């Protein structure tokens, strides 16, 4: 440890550095520049504080809180497990933050050079064995605790055994929509997943089998579970167990191309009765209303059938979503717009306007054909 | 800073170009050796990735010829390449002793052995492409085989180019004893290429088949 007198040179240096920057205050331009920068910054700050932010708050969308996909409002067993682990980790890291940031703040205040400083150098401390050992050991112990907690939840979620009663759903990711199949039930749909709810003691988890037809996607509905990727040439698996009925929103969480942003997910948890009803409806063949036969012809004779399937027609394309029960869904284009006849019409006429870059081409139908087609499609409940 | 203090405390280096800490200890690592070692480390990392890809894709072909069906052990080729490590060592030893003629002789043999290896690889590939129908595009094996062996072959080519340049200087009588260190550094690269071949040979022709 050393307490040493400065060389006179050092004292001069410290004094020099305290002096105002000569060129900044002596010269008029320097002073003016400083003042204008200062004023501009202050103006910006007040603008933001009192105009922009309040405006933003007021203009803020009216949100249905159940639709905010927060990871801290879990409503499914895996999401709960994660949320609890997250809380634990937050508490530990929060404590570390408080201690270390507190010490930093203390040091900044306590050890700042005072105006009356005599210019001597403080005691030189090169290290301390005991201190350094302590602050290595404690973090190491913290890491052990955290890893044990983490390992337990990994196992709990990833290695959960699938109960016999579990529902099996196959999800296949496409650019930019979700193909959803229920292999044991013989149903095919798109973008909106219906599952039974686990309530009142009966556990009805749904196990998802995840694949991709093209590039890497990711299935993420935060309230229900952590995300799992859909990777071509690989089969992944995850499970969800919603505990209330209603809608859970999510979206693709792995950049997959131009319209990654509009590959939205909707998961509907139904009561077992509602779910069975939905399944029964989905199993039926497509409506074949003779009033809209003209529209059905348009479908079957245009290139639509290259990509789309409608059960009971000649259309069995797999590149695009299955349309057999198109109107049983609440949205179109993987959540890009609400499902309505007008929306459907606009979508078919120019998909690229609503979802630029989408792989569905504008079919360039004349208005009459388009009307007939829409009339037909809107019967497909 | 006070010039007087500077001269008394900071001792001058008496005009030598470099004065390193290691001069106190007695051994100065050669810049060329360290630099080449760094290059070898980086190249090893690149080769490791190609080897990993090769091993990962073993047995995963959906169609097309498999290693066992089409690969033959390139024994002669390998003996040639690996002996060239010995011959380059002989060449270097001769150079250090100042024997320019012997250096030139062994250097030429090294180049010949390396060139024979390349020819052999070329012949092997010709056979694989035209007789066995295996190309880079055929299947995963084709992809990983040609890229790994090709990456190695390209390093042999670069090595031969460098060796040939030295050969040209040697013919002109310009390579002398004082250049031994630089030749040694080039030799390190050549040894590296040979070691990589041992790895590639083991992975492709022994483990892979």
């Amino acid at each position, binding site marked *: 440890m050393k307490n*040493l007198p400065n*060389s006179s040179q*050092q004292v001069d240096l410290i004094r020099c*550095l305290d002096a105002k*920057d000569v060129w900044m205050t002596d010269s008029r331009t320097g002073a003016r520049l*400083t003042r204008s*920068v200062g004023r501009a910054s202050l103006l910006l*700050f007040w603008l933001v504080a009192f105009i*922009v932010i309040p405006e*933003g708050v007021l203009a803020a969308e009216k949100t249905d809180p159940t*639709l905010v*996909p*927060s990871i801290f409002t879990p409503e499914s067993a895996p999401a709960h*497990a994660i949320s609890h682990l*997250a809380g634990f*980790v937050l508490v530990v*890291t929060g404590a570390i933050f408080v201690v*270390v940031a507190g010490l*930093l703040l203390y040091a900044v205040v306590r*050890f*700042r050079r005072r105006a009356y400083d005599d210019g001597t150098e403080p005691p*030189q*401390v*090169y290290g301390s064995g005991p201190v350094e050992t302590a602050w290595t050991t404690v973090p190491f112990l913290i*890491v052990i605790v955290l890893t044990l*907690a983490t*390992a337990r*939840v*990994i196992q709990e979620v*990833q*290695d959960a055994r699938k109960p016999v009663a579990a529902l099996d759903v196959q999800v296949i990711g496409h650019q930019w929509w979700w193909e959803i199949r229920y292999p044991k039930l013989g149903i095919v749909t798109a973008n909106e997943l219906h599952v039974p709810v686990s309530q009142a003691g009966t556990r009805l988890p749904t196990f998802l089998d995840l694949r991709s037809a093209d590039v890497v996607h990711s299935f993420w509905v935060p309230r229900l*579970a*952590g995300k799992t*990727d859909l*990777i071509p040439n*690989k089969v992944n*698996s995850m499970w969800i167990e919603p505990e209330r009925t209603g809608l859970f929103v999510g979206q693709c*969480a*792995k*950049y*997959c191309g*131009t319209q*990654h*942003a509009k590959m939205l997910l909707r998961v509907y948890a139904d009561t077992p009765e509602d779910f069975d009803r939905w399944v029964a409806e989905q199993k039926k063949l497509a409506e074949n209303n003779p009033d809209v036969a003209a529209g059905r012809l348009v479908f079957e004779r245009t290139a639509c059938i290259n990509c789309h399937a409608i059960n009971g027609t000649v259309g069995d394309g797999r590149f695009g979503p299955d349309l057999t029960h198109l109107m049983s869904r609440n949205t179109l284009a993987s959540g890009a717009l609400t499902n309505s006849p007008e929306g459907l019409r606009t979508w078919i006429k120019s998909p690229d306007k609503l979802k*630029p870059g989408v792989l569905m081409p504008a079919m360039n139908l004349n208005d009459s054909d388009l009307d007939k087609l829409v009339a037909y499609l809107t019967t497909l409940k | 800073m006070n010039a007087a203090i500077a001269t008394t405390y*900071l001792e*001058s280096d008496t005009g*030598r170009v470099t004065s*390193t800490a290691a001069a106190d200890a007695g051994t100065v690592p050669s810049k060329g050796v360290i*630099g080449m070692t760094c*290059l070898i*480390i*980086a190249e090893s990392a690149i080769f*490791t990735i190609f080897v990993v*890809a090769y091993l990962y*894709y073993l047995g995963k*072909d959906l169609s097309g010829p498999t290693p066992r069906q089409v690969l033959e052990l390139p024994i002669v080729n390998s003996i040639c390449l690996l002996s060239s490590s010995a011959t380059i060592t002989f060449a270097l030893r001769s150079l250090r002793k100042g024997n320019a003629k012997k250096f030139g002789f062994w250097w030429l043999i090294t180049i010949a052995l390396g060139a024979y290896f390349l020819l052999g690889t070329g012949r092997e590939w010709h056979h694989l492409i035209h007789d066995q129908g295996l190309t880079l595009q055929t*299947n995963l094996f*084709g992809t990983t085989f040609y*890229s790994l062996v090709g990456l190695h072959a390209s390093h042999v080519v670069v090595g031969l180019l460098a060796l040939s340049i030295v050969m040209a200087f040697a013919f002109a009588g310009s390579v002398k004893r004082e250049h031994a260190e630089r030749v040694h550094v080039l030799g390190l690269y050549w040894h590296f290429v040979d070691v990589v071949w041992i790895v590639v040979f083991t992975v492709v022709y022994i483990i892979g088949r």
Partner: protein
Amino acid sequence: MNGAIRTGDLGGALPLDSTAETEKSVFDSIHSWLVTVDHKKLGLMYIMFGLFFFVVAGLEACLIRTQLAIPNNHFLSPQLFNQLFTMHGTTMVFLVGMPLIFGFANYLVPLMIGARDLAFPRLNAFGFWLSVFGGLLLYFSFIGGEGMTGAGSAPDVGWFAYAPLTGKAFSKGHSTDYWILGIMIGGFGSIATAANIITTILCMRCRGMTLAKMPLLAWINLIMCGMVLIAVSPLTAAQIMLLLDRFVGSHFFDTQAGGSATLWMHFFWIFGHPEVYVLILPAFAFASEIIPVFSRKAIFGYPVMVGATLAIAFVSLSVWAHHMFTIGMTSTSNTFFAISTMLVGIPTGIKIFNWLGTMWGGKLRFDTPMLFSTAFLFQFLIAGLTGIMLAAAPFNWQLNDSYFVIAHFHFVLVGALVFMIFAAVYYWFPKATGRLLSERFGKWHFWLFLIGFHMTFDTMHIPGILGMPRRIYTYEAGRGWGIWNLIVTVGVAFQVFGTLVFVLNILLSLRKGRPAGKDPWDAWTLEWSTTSPPPEYNFAQIPTVKSRRPLWDIKHPSDPDWRYE
């Protein structure tokens, strides 16, 4: 005079400064910079290159944030947005981060170890110009013709360019090829420069400077360059494979032919994770030089700092798959990578304690370099802690690929790295130019940037927690993300102003800054013993040192460091 003096030629006693330059025309000046092999000039060029692209990538970020300020915005098309976030990330890592750290290493390492230049000066220049060419090639893509969707050819596959999105089938046109080639060329430059710096440090230290007496900056750069050798190569290899896939029809990542998408991920992240440690290590180096000087104390625990850096280097090679927790690895693999990731947090955390220990009991002078360094400590602490959160794999299953991750890594790369780069500029600008930067402007720069940084990146954690994924060009109203995105965007304005003040400071101080003299900060390492700016040959006489702080020994002859080390 300058023309006659080449690195390595010592003809007896030499004058101590090089200000007596003959009158040069502008062309001569530019020419001397273009053909230079001097580490100082190359270092400064690297830094100017990095700062230029910092502004460019910053503008890209401004555009991105404008688009995301409100839900369902139509300011940018999705195609352009996707190009912008790809280019923003790619630029910041490869054309800002790498050049800046190599620039500082280039400039400082020889000066701090008492050498006259790097080991291979011409290789140094070659590496620099490779980086420049790579950068220009990457940016040429914006105008280089039809791309995937016709909107110019800038890469739009994300900075980590996952397969098979980058395959010929899904990435038509040449956008991905520009990404591959631009970076690969720069990568060769990085490997060359890393080898150069390692050789310099191992072979060219001045007499008396054993490895144990080397400044921490030299140690950390040595380790950083070692990591570059091992980590950049996997990226080069993967890019060669991708090029083969795209041009000659090989199947490395061609999933339609049995290739593997996850293989690209493994290869990329084996590069990508050590890469971010490569980027942050120099920030540690700067902190380890600046904090002691402005605390008036030696660095606390030098041997442990070296050991911790080595530990970081080794362990960081084993954590890469924490970027891949969601791809469906086995629970064993997930657990392994969770453990290794948390373990690497220990040597990293220790460093924070060591810097704190350096400040403890000192006499803290809050000039601009120290302001930035203190903010660095606070922000790096937070970054490390959010990193621990992300290391807990199940937590990661929620947070991965969300705005929480973006907030985390911007805390590291901006909050820690950029802040320390600012600190380093304020600290060493006087040495490089002979003039001090304005303290007043410095403080304005600091506070504006600090406010903006926290407004943006503290807030950014929230949309992540609320389920907002990354790389989306717009988002639904009704998910509760709008207000937070707005605040994030507003914070950018402060950072822009702060950066403007910084650039102004540099430009004005170059002309009117106070003369700095040799040692304006009263520091202790060798670069402060020579003139500001140093002569081309760095030192009149190569010094001999006896301790880690040679100038301390001179200034305190009655109580030199070497008695205590």
